[in-house]
């Protein structure tokens, strides 16, 4: 501040300038060496093997390279041989069963924040569709995740007839996001014991996934895999409607899932 300002500051701009000047003169307590302390603690936990973090990173180190390579090879093979790509969604296969996830994370990880239907409609970059089946009614929870472009809306119900609840109390999930999201794409990894059946819903190609475990992940703008950590057990119908990719998860049969998809308005 080369010269005194008009004082007291009456305009917003003058007060902002005074505060910016004051910020240069304010003394904070010295910053402790936090990075060093955090790294030391992480290394100690890793070497002692007593932290849940070790389990998490150990799995990723131990399996991710093999899975990534297999996924890449199979992705190419699947894309060429089967053309299993729907909108921005691509299906890949991996051997074996996935390792257990930390408990209590499934519901909170990939859905984003709980927002309610009105806000989801306001924030989504597309028209949010809701099943019009009387037997399931309005969604109990509505979540919005601002990834990918246009966002992802997840509608969640508890147990309903034909849609038994899983261990987290989730019976039916309908997820909607824009198709052909480029360069980022959602991908789906399907583990052994899972079957993928090609079908038609509303005249468009759809996939019915059943019989095992599968997980979603997506690739960022640099092509790196970003794990959504949402692992699903049960059935999923993936279909398309008006530029949207729709996932219907939890229906006991393809017929039920198709009813839900067909009823989306």
């Amino acid at each position, binding site marked *: 501040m080369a010269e005194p300002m008009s004082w*007291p500051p009456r305009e917003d701009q003058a007060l902002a300038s005074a505060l910016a000047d004051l910020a240069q003169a304010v003394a*904070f307590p010295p910053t*402790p060496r*936090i990075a060093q302390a955090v790294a030391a603690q992480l290394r100690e936990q890793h070497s002692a093997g007593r932290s849940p973090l070790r389990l998490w990173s150990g799995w*990723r180190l131990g399996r991710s390279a093999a899975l990534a390579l297999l996924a890449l090879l199979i992705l190419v093979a699947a894309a060429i041989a089967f053309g299993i790509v729907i909108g921005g969604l691509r299906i890949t296969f991996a051997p074996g069963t996935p390792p257990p996830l930390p408990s209590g994370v499934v519901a909170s*990880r990939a859905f984003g924040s709980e927002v309610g239907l009105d806000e989801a409609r306001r924030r989504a970059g597309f028209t949010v569709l809701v099943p019009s089946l009387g037997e399931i009614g309005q969604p109990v929870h509505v979540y919005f995740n601002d990834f990918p472009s246009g966002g992802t809306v997840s509608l969640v119900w508890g147990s309903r007839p034909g849609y038994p609840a899983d261990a987290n109390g989730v019976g039916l999930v309908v997820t909607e996001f824009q198709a052909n999201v480029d360069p980022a794409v959602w991908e789906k990894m399907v583990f052994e014991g899972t079957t993928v059946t090609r079908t038609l819903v509303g005249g468009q190609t759809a996939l019915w996934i059943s019989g095992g475990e599968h997980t979603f992940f997506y690739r960022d703008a640099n092509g*790196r895999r970003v794990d959504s950590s949402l692992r699903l057990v049960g059935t999923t119908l993936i279909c398309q409607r008006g530029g949207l990719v729709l996932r219907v998860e939890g229906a006991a049969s393809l017929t039920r899932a198709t009813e839900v998809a067909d009823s989306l308005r």
Partner: protein
Amino acid sequence: MEGRPLTDAQLIDAARHGDVAAYEELVRRYEELAFRTAYLVCGDADEARDAAQEGFLRAYGAMGRFRAGAEPRTWLLRIVANAARNRRRAAGRRAGLALRSARDRPSDGAAPSPEVAVLAGEQRSELLAAIDRLGDEDRRIITLRWFADLSEREMAAVLDVPAGTVKSRLSRAMERLRSVIGGSPDHG
């Protein structure tokens, strides 16, 4: 590419694969900001240190939830601030702020006259005292905005409120600050 420092996203990617050194580098980039933010939120240096440390450890454990394309700085601040807010509830203090001595301050190169320097110093003291007279919420939002230099989006993450709420709260706090300064002609 070679020789260039890694981006935050690259460090996070490495940390997700168990590279502690990469995470240490990321924490180093934000430790001062996180500590100061935590200090302004919880009002105590020891608590702020512990909150920042706890927040960074939690963030490491929650790396799987980091979304590609999200701002690592905002994400880390949100987690650290959450830890700091929990500690504030327990401690109920407010950050003590003082002015640095003139010789410790960064200079803008201009050499003001002694009279100007004294006057500017008095105005700074008066402004800081006025901030101290504000209610906790006003004081917190002003210090986060101006002293921690957070954007409105970052403040929303730190305070766990919508961005629109930050804007209106900040605007009201600035108004009250102006009236506190204007209503205290005898101060300083």
